[in-house]
């Protein structure tokens, strides 16, 4: 089989589509391009290895769920929950995405060029070397980083002085952090979330992310350089201790 494989997904259900992807990977494909994608769910779910998949169209929900290693490049918008419980690898979205982007993500990185819907980064987690990252180029709707337990969300608010945010930012956050370019209105902070300024070390941490984001989408990284950044993080080491149980 050729190193580069092309699949026409026109009218195809996701089961044969994923079977074709897995067959190509098993045969040693390094790159797969899928054309005419329109709403097929679960693309590349549970897929391992290092294949690069280019998706032309609008993939359905749960793109790259449980994926461990591959890269998905989407030329179009995504529906709900791309990167759901993703383990490793990369998703690059040339467009916007629906609700619950990076839902329960446990490793790897997602870049969204434009906006994300409600509850992006809900329940992101981390463990030892596994630390997921979600970079959002535009704005996010309410409950960004809800119940976040680990990992990093970076939101850049491209084309504006700051990203447009909404209520419940970091609501229930007890690990990880959300880094926001520009000002964050206190009224948007969720329960248990605290705002502080970006430290010098954290600036060093986001610089390579901004560079990679800009590289993927052909943007000038300097536009994100000299702005103020804020960190939204848990209000304490255990902000919800004693909420559901009592300790003596």
């Amino acid at each position: 089989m050729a190193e580069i494989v092309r699949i026409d997904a026109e009218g195809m259900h996701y089961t044969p589509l994923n079977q074709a992807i897995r067959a190509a990977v098993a045969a040693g494909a390094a790159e797969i391009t899928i054309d005419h994608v329109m709403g097929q769910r679960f693309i590349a779910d549970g897929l391992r290895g290092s294949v690069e998949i280019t998706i032309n169209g609008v993939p359905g929900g749960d793109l790259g769920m449980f994926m461990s290693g591959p890269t998905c490049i989407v030329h179009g918008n995504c529906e709900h929950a791309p990167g759901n419980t993703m383990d490793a690898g990369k998703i690059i979205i040339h467009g916007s995405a629906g609700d619950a982007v990076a839902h329960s993500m446990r490793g790897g990185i997602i870049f969204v060029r434009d906006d994300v819907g409600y509850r992006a980064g809900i329940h992101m987690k981390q463990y030892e070397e596994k630390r997921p990252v979600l970079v959002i180029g535009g704005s996010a709707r309410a409950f960004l980083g809800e119940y976040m337990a680990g990992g990093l969300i970076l939101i850049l608010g491209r084309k504006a002085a700051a990203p447009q945010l909404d209520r419940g930012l970091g609501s229930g956050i007890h690990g990880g952090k959300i880094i926001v370019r520009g000002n964050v209105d206190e009224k948007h902070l969720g329960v248990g979330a605290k705002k502080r300024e970006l430290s010098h070390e954290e600036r060093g941490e986001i610089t390579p992310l901004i560079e990679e984001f800009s590289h993927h989408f052909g943007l000038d990284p300097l536009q994100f350089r000299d702005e103020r950044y804020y960190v939204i993080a848990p209000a304490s080491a255990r902000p919800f201790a004693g909420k559901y149980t009592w300790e003596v």
Partner: protein
Amino acid sequence: MIYMCGIIGVIDRSRQRMDGTGIRAALSRMDERGSGEGAGYAAYGAFPDLCDYYALHIFFDNPHETKPLVIEELSKWGTIEHQEEIPTFEQPGVRKVHIPWRFFFKPDPRLMPRSTTPEDDIVMYLVMKVNTSIPGALVYASGKNVAVFKASGWPEEVADFYRIQDYQGYLWIGHNRYPTNTPGWWGGAHPFNLLNWSVVHNGEITSYGTNRRYIESYGYRCTMYTDTEVVAYLFDLLIRRHGLSIETAVTALAPPFWDEIDRMPSKQQEIVRAIRLAYGPALMNGPFAIVVANHDSMVGFTDRIKLRPLVSGEHGNRLYISSEEAAIRTMEPGIEQVTMPRAGEPVIGRFLQ
């Protein structure tokens, strides 16, 4: 979870009519959101030759037994201009457990003298009367110039069962059901229709008990064993009978949080507080995305914290609202931008004239 049920609606603001082919393809694109236990469509402008008559759609278990009882009831309140069995075409996946029938009915307004909308009130009374007192007959639609097609099955099967490609409408809504809290049956398939109003809904109305008690105190009766029914009745009550605008009705059903109201300019605060207080029992709780159609407009909105998906897009004179972008693009590949309405805020498409 967010996988359950798929909804779609399209309105052509210039009243150019479309056949059912496009919405069938769009709804079938979201087959993953259903379970094959219910699907349906509503078409506005479907009966131009009989547009002055209420199109009463009825599921009969056994027309020979129950149809005479329905005709007797209708004849007390007006005249039946025309009636027919709704043409259906056998499909492998649809078991024809009911016989769908339609009556084109003209109520006599003199029989409801104290009403400001006597014809509508007579039809509403008849719908509730038949559904609560004639077992084996269920009125599932009652609007003028509105056709409703629903059954247990997948979207494409139900579409082919009724051959919706043979009907034309300037506004269509469709629904693919994944029943969760009550079993799937023909009467539980969406759209739910009463008079002008047709509703498709993804989610659950957890405030159903409160909402049901509230609208039943105004003469509505819930007979379909599922929560969405109350939404159609709430729209009829708030807009037709109480005279609210669509925007105000949506504010009553999915109001802003109190902390958001506290930050509004004082005049607006006063209005929204009054709406919340007056319509507390109409407030719908729980996760939902809803599209409501009527003869003036189509409106889509979600619950206040956006627990169900909803996107919309415009192309030419047409506005599309759906659970998924892929469904909209299936109907209109040329659409440029698909956007996400804010939680609790209505997207409204109105006819130009």
